[in-house]
Structure formats: C-alpha cells, structure tokens
C-alpha cells in the first residue's frame, strides 16, 4: 500500500455525489455534490437553526475547504450535532465523494 494515501492532495475533484451521517438525534446528515461555482455552498436545515445556524454553516464550510474541495454544494440536515461530529461527517462525505480515504490525521483539530 502507498505511504501517501493518508495525505490530502492540493485540490480534489468530486467524482460522485455522496452522503454521510444519519437523522438520529445528535447527528447531522451531510450530502455533497459537485458545484458549478468556485465556492462551497451550504444549505442547512437544523433543529437549532436560530441559535447555532451560523456556527454550523461556518464549521461545515471550513471542514470542506480543509479537505481541499473548492466546488461543492452541501445539503445538511442537522439534529443537534456537536462541532466535532459535524467535522467528522463532512470529512466522511468528502472522502466518499472523492473516492479517497485521504485525511490529514496529524492536523491540529
């Protein structure tokens, strides 16, 4: 197996739409698909939209950008997930969408 497979290449391309997460309480369902524009567009539905909506969108956007994706549309349905869960679900969706298991495990979280 290659040594490099756990490092993230510079910019990645989404090869297929993918999703991660469930609708269970405390979780967030992330669906990711390629976007037309060079931006990360996030559409959020959340049970705590008023109180944490801005924070959740920011967390999702940051996690997608850190993964190395620039053209993406995210549809998220949140059931009160904590930030660490959101980051994990976004990373999983990104991995699945780019058919890679690359991730920078050494990054400061």
């Amino acid at each position: 197996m290659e040594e490099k497979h756990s490092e993230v290449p510079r910019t990645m391309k989404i090869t297929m739409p993918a999703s991660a997460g469930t609708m269970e309480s405390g979780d967030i369902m992330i669906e990711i698909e390629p976007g037309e524009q060079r931006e990360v567009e996030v559409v959020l539905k959340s049970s705590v939209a008023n109180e944490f909506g801005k924070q959740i969108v920011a967390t999702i956007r940051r996690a997608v950008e850190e993964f190395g994706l620039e053209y993406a549309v995210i549809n998220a349905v949140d059931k009160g997930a904590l930030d660490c869960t959101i980051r994990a679900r976004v990373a999983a969706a990104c991995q699945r969408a780019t058919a890679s298991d690359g991730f920078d495990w050494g990054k400061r979280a």
Partner: protein
Amino acid sequence: MLFVPGNNPGMMSDAHIYGSDALMFDLEDSVTLREKDAARLLVYHALKTIHYGECERVVRVNPLSTPFGKLDIEAMVAAGAEVIRLPKTETAQDILDTEAEIERAEQKYGIPVGQTRMMAAVEGALGVVNAYKIASASPRLVAIALGAEDYCANLKTSRSLEGSELQYARGAIVVAARAAGIDCIDTVFSDVNNEEQLVKETRMIKQLGFDGKSVINPRQIKPVHRVFTPTHEEIVKAQRILAASEEAAARGSGVVALDGKMIDRPVVIRAERTLELAYASRAVFEEDEV
C-alpha cells in the same frame, strides 16, 4: 469498561458521565462495513475534541487482516487514544504486527514512542492456547480480555447462563495475565435487564481473579463496581493488617502478628490491594481516616 459504538455520535458526546473506569470506542463489530470510514472519523474527532474526564480511552480497531485496520491504528494513535484494543488476537505475532503499526504512527505524528498502550482480546481457541505468549509479547500490553461470543462459536458450542463453556478460557486468561504481570478483563453480559445474573457472574469472575469486566450499558456500571468494591468489614480488616505490618516494620521485625495469629506476606499484599480498590471505588476516603 463501558462499550461505546463508534458510529453513534449521540452516545459519544458524554459517555464519560456514567463513571466507568474506561471507555471502549468500537470501530469493529458494532460498525457495518459501509460505515467503517465514517466511524473512524467520528471517533477520531471525538477523541481530539471531547474531554472525557478521568476515563481511560480505549479504541477497538479492526484487525490488520482487514482493509480498515491499518488506517484505524494510524488515526487513533494520531488522535491520542490511550489504549489500542486488538480483537481476535490469536498469536504473539498479531501483537507484534500491531505494535509495529502503532510505532510507525507515533513517529509520524510526533507522539512519544511507547506512549500508546495495547490491549489484546482473545476470541478463539488458538488465542486461548497462546494466551501467555500473547500476554507477554509486548511491554505496551496492559491487559488481556476475553470475547465470549466468537469464542463459543469457535468452540462449536453455545453460550449458557452459568458459563461452563467459558471456564477453561477464563482460567487460562487469568493465569496468563498474572504470569505476564498484566490485567485481565472479563467479557460482557448482554442481558441488560437481568441485574441479578450480572452480579452473580461478576462475583464469580472476581473470585476467579479477574481485574474488571466490560459492560454494554451504563446501568451495568454500578452493579459491577459494587461487586469489586470491598465491604466495610474487608476494609477494616485490611487496615488493621496493614497497621500491624507497619508496626512490625517499625520494630525492625519481619514477623507480623494480629489477634495472636501470624500474618504471611501474601496476606499483607492482599490487604494492600483491598485498600487500593477501596480508595479507587470511593468506599473510603484517605482524608477521612483517623
């Protein structure tokens, strides 16, 4: 040790509040094949972000023989897990192979080499036969555990309430653990509603010499703790034995006596252990002693 499935974010966020001594995050049997990648990320992020208080954080990774094991180990070491638990351990070589992966990851992520500990779960006949070799295979190994479900299947028998089919395995694992100087942990009791039987089984395995037991539901934590907590009489007796031992040492004598009887060294050691357990389970408090 409370078992926490690795694909359930709701449970992971506050698993430490129930007061178990250790938390075992599972990437193996409780996670479906399709979700192995997502579970690995969930546990990684949880370990790096959530403050689990005084609970020891153990992660059960997938075996190296699967496509997931290597990346599991790398991610969990990077996340700072205290203990990597290896399922279905059969030979000492399994331990050595895992240790090599752990060391690679420690070096890659700047973690002091040797800091990550290991735990081996024996879940089959071969593992029981090799128990001592496994238990002494690495200085990183802190405990050896029994996984009964797969073991019974391997033995071509079924699980019973009184557990006669596990007798040999339990005995072998305790002996191996003691010979190698590490801890031994008994298997889970799956009937969450049958507290009476849980207590009965825990008493039995405590008598066999086990240091602890895995649990699958927070409700099981207290009953197991209670079994392992020394009684008031045991504590008082242990305190008196230790007092007698200290008094003899102060006199410069190697002969310890209490109530007109001679106390052997093993008895003193057992009393020390009883008090350790008593403090650990908050049955007594050091500041309360007169």
